[in-house]
């Protein structure tokens, strides 16, 4: 069985091969073959992951951490970093859903990107992304994870600005990269500190060093806080979340793959991976992670309530759900964090792809105020979307309920205030998702499929309404098949870690070796658990019915809820932009002027002064021998006088 695990390098090799082949032949392959090739590579990668998974299961539980080294990458001085892979339950769990969901989204993209002039370029980026993401997850050291980390960031940049003809898309791509770089600074410094402290960047060696020699709590805290800065950048946590809503400028499959299911979970992965360091840190460090997560979750949920762009709603929802995972990590509930990461990957990818299908059907319109009554016209899309909605809303037995419930239980054990606020966030989640579903798929149509002639025939009355003209249609099978599969997963993924009996804690048992006994355990018995679950269920039903009350039965005017402050995302982005465009830009301009006028000015002034002095001195060179003789005579007298005075008679 060990031989199967040695195949781990194949997992990223497939998408890398896809990148190379498509770069060489992509244009010649054209549409749709380039897309099929990329999808096949993801299929190969998924198969390889399955094989490694089977191989890993064949090992004893505590031997499930296998390092496969390819070659030395950066051997300099006491630093030695390999290109090596770590196959362990955590990395393979991540790889399974990255390659699985990734393959489905590749397939979907074949339909979605139909007719785009950058068709093959799109799949180059998509495969490159998958490669980077798998390096991030499978790398056996921090530096290789950072390679993947920055790689996914670069792909995210390339894909957000994929339709670069529009200035807004280009800006969004740049903003995503630069904001992420702020986080990457934290990751970098964390690596330097880890290198200085442990003499290595390899996970195994770092953890061994901690276990055998220990580490000062202050150092561990600093490393974790710096990693948190990095994680906040990648996983869009406050205050570095501002790039993610803008990132929706990219094609919708990109939003599903990168900005919902996989890349944005990298921060959660990183912190989970480094759990032995968190365990050594001061107590306030996990608390910080927890409160950052909670604050982000709550804030983003309130913002999502007031968004009208279908993708923006889902974007803020992603920010909010990632906050849940941070809360889980902070309370030591690593399993719950990964559990929610997996279920979220399924239902959020599903929701985004569903949104893409709707946008596809609505000729690119993303404003849910101009949707309505689409359920009958897009039957598959709306049915699967409903499954995703129930999953994220936390309605049992859909997957989201189980994973969210687990996070809530740990939050309750950690801090009651935290639990109440997180529960409120869950209720809000159910509310805004209900709003979205009702506004998009049900209720009156706020568009028309009549042609101008028909409208004329109706007496022109309807045409005066000036409803946008749309012709909603269901998407091709390449797009709906992934929707159906993901919907199935979103429904049943809860079975990964059902709470009823210890035998059903599959994920918990599976992940245990990667957590080194650092995972928290709920300190209360079945009774409290049941009550908490009941409260969570009541909460989500409350959110759903509140949503229905406002958006179906119109008991309350939606305008009273969708406050402009929320619609403008708490104005955080505006403030940052104003700062960058105002004082920030002025400081840059001032520095540049300083360089031109002061630094270079000094150089030019010196030049000018020397030239002037030269011009003056030139007057002395008269060419008359007698004036030189006079000069010599004066000099000689002066010298003589000096010697005489020094002689001291």
């Amino acid at each position, binding site marked *: 069985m060990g031989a199967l695990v040695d195949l781990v390098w194949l997992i990223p090799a497939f998408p890398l091969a896809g990148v190379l082949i498509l770069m060489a032949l992509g244009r010649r392959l054209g549409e749709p073959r380039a897309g099929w090739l990329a999808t096949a590579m993801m299929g190969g990668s998924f198969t390889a992951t399955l094989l490694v998974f089977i191989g890993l299961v064949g090992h004893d539980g505590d031997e499930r*951490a296998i390092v496969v080294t390819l070659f030395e990458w*950066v051997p*300099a001085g006491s630093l030695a970093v390999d290109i090596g892979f770590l196959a362990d339950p955590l990395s393979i769990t991540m790889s399974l859903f990255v390659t699985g969901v990734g393959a489905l989204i590749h397939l979907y993209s074949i339909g979605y990107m139909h007719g785009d002039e950058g068709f093959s370029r799109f799949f180059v980026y998509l495969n490159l992304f998958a490669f980077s993401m798998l390096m991030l997850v499978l790398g056996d050291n921090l530096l290789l994870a950072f390679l993947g980390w920055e790689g996914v960031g670069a792909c995210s940049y390339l894909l957000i600005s994929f339709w670069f*003809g529009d200035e807004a898309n280009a800006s969004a791509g740049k903003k995503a990269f630069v904001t992420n770089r702020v986080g990457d600074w934290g990751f970098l410094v964390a690596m330097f500190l880890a290198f200085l402290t442990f003499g290595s960047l390899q996970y195994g060696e770092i953890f061994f060093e901690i276990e055998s020699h220990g580490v000062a709590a202050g150092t561990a805290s600093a490393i974790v806080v710096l990693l948190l800065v990095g994680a906040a950048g990648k996983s869009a946590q406050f205050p570095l979340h501002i790039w993610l809503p803008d990132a929706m400028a990219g094609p919708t499959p990109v939003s599903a793959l990168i900005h919902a299911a996989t890349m944005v979970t990298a921060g959660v992965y990183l912190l989970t991976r480094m759990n032995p360091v968190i365990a050594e840190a001061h107590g306030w460090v996990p608390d910080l992670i927890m409160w950052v997560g909670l604050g982000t979750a709550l804030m983003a949920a309130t913002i999502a309530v007031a968004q009208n762009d279908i993708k923006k709603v889902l974007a803020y929802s992603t920010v909010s759900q990632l906050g849940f995972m941070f809360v889980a990590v902070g309370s030591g509930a690593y399993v719950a964090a990964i559990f929610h990461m997996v279920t979220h990957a399924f239902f959020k990818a599903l929701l985004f792809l569903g949104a893409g299908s709707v946008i596809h059907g609505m000729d690119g319109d993303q404003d849910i105020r101009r949707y309505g009554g689409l359920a009958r016209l897009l039957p598959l899309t709306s049915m699967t979307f409903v499954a995703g909605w129930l999953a994220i809303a936390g309605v049992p037995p859909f997957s989201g309920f189980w994973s969210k419930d687990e996070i809530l239980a740990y939050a309750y054990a950690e801090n009651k205030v935290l639990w109440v606020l997180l529960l409120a966030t869950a209720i809000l989640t159910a509310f805004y998702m209900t709003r979205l579903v009702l506004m998009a798929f049900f209720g009156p149509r706020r568009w028309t499929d009549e042609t101008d002639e028909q409208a004329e025939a109706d007496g022109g009355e309807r045409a005066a309404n000036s409803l946008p003209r749309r012709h909603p249609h269901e998407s091709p099978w390449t797009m709906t098949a992934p929707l159906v599969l993901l919907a199935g997963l979103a429904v049943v993924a809860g079975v990964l870690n059902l709470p009823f009996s210890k035998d059903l804690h599959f994920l918990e048992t599976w992940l245990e070796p990667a957590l080194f006994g650092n995972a928290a355990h709920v300190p209360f018995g079945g009774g409290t658990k049941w009550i908490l679950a009941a409260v969570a269920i009541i909460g989500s039903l409350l959110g759903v019915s509140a949503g229905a009350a406002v958006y179906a039965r119109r008991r309350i005017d939606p305008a009273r809820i969708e406050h402009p402050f929320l619609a403008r995302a708490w104005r955080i982005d505006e403030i940052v932009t104003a700062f960058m465009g105002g004082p920030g830009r002025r400081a840059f301009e001032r520095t*540049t002027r300083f360089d031109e006028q002061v*630094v270079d000015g000094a150089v030019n002034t010196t*030049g000018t002064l020397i030239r002037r002095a030269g011009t003056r001195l030139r007057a002395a060179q008269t060419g008359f021998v007698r004036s030189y003789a006079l000069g010599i005579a004066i000099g000689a007298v002066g010298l003589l006088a000096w010697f005489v005075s020094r002689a001291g008679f």
Partner: protein
Amino acid sequence: MMVLPAIIFLPLVGAAAIALIAPSRSTAFKPVAVATSAATGALTLWLMAAFDKHDGGFQFTQLADWVGSAGISWHVGVDGISLFLVVLTGLLFPIAIVACDPPHDAKAYYIWMLVLETGCLGVFLALDLVLFFLFFEIVLIPMYFLIGKWGHANRKYAATKFFLFTMLGSALMLVGMLSLALLARDYGETGEVTFNLLELKDTAGELPTITARWIFLSFALAFAVKVPLFPVHTWLPDAHTEAPTAGSVILAGVLLKLGTYGLVRFGLYLFPEASRYFAPLLFTLGVIGILYGAVVATMQRDLKRLVAYSSVAHLGFIVLGIFSINIEGIEGGLLQMVNHGLSTGALFLLVGFIYERRHTRQISEMVGLQKAAPVLAAVFTVVMLSSVGLPGLNGFVGEFLILAGAFVAHRWWAVVAAAGVILAALYLLWAYQRVFHGTPDEANRSMPDLSWQEKLMMAPLVGLIVFLGVYPKPVIERMEPAVVALIEHMEQVEGFESPTVGDRPEGSFEELRALLGHHGGDEGEGH
């Protein structure tokens, strides 16, 4: 061994050959220039292949009396510190010569280019101070003419500024060099004046501390101008911007390294104490350069000037690495010299290609070029990401080693310098967005994409950018013995210990499991 003289003088032979060709046969100049520079490049590749990677000393050395009475010798040799700068020079010159044709006076242009190559190679290979100084000064003359004669509108000003600025530094260095040789005579075994680097490295350590510091300063100033370090950097944007494309490629790719190379070869090697004494000053200036260069680059309106200012930031990194005075930092610095040569050389070529097509360098006049020239845009993207320091491409490895070394030595400086990676992303991505993104207007829509010759010129650069990002080991392992030897020499002379990290942990997952099993019992409870 005759290979080093062959490498140094082959370009000069080519220059002489061109001088002998009748001016009427104007098509003959370029082939000769290309052939000689390519042959030189091939020789440097051979040198790399024949180089013994386990030897930390000088190889292929050649020592002959030159001006014996003055202690001046013809002494050349190569070690892991200079090897890749020689190879870089050997690679960049043919590319620059092939890629850019002079609009007029082709004969003189190629002669100067080849003389310049001889000068650059001589600097990296010289092991005698006077010989080094000679080559160091020779370099100025062809560069002065290349900028002044084939440059852009403001070329006269830029050329003069470049020349005077650098002369100022080297005049002081000459004084320092002479005083060093004269004063060190008293500590030598023979009691005679010598400019031989290998003899001076022992006697220089015996000089009184204050004297050595003053002499070090005279060297450091000359090199600081060449690097250039803040605040003596302002010749660079003018020279780079006004120079013809090939001139800019060589300026950024090779000439700037004369400064950083000099700091390692003569600064650290001859003056360990003074290097350590002035290290805080130098790496502080390096860190200022990183941030300041990036900030000023961000606000540039001229694309070429923007790339020029990015060099101030990158060279700041290199100086920071060198004056960390540990293996990681110095190796990172050396590696980054090569990396910067490749990526900034490539950037200047690309900007040159754009200029030839659009006849402007103003960012505001370009828009949506990715639509018009997708291949050019793709190559630009790769090179830009290398310059930004994206892992997997060459720039990252050097930057990471520099910062890791700097963190071990002076952590807060590294923490501040690391913020440079944010700014690098800002100025390059913003420039890319303005130039390549958006919808092209009338003037930009019809810009032709890269020709196959241009693609051929970019291919080796892009190939190396990727290769050195994925597999830098062949370079690092050839540098390491020489760097270790340098640090051991410094430690021995100075009696200090280079700041390093403790040993690598001797255990991984398996041992960890054994440990965890040994602790036993207290885990897995609590259900």
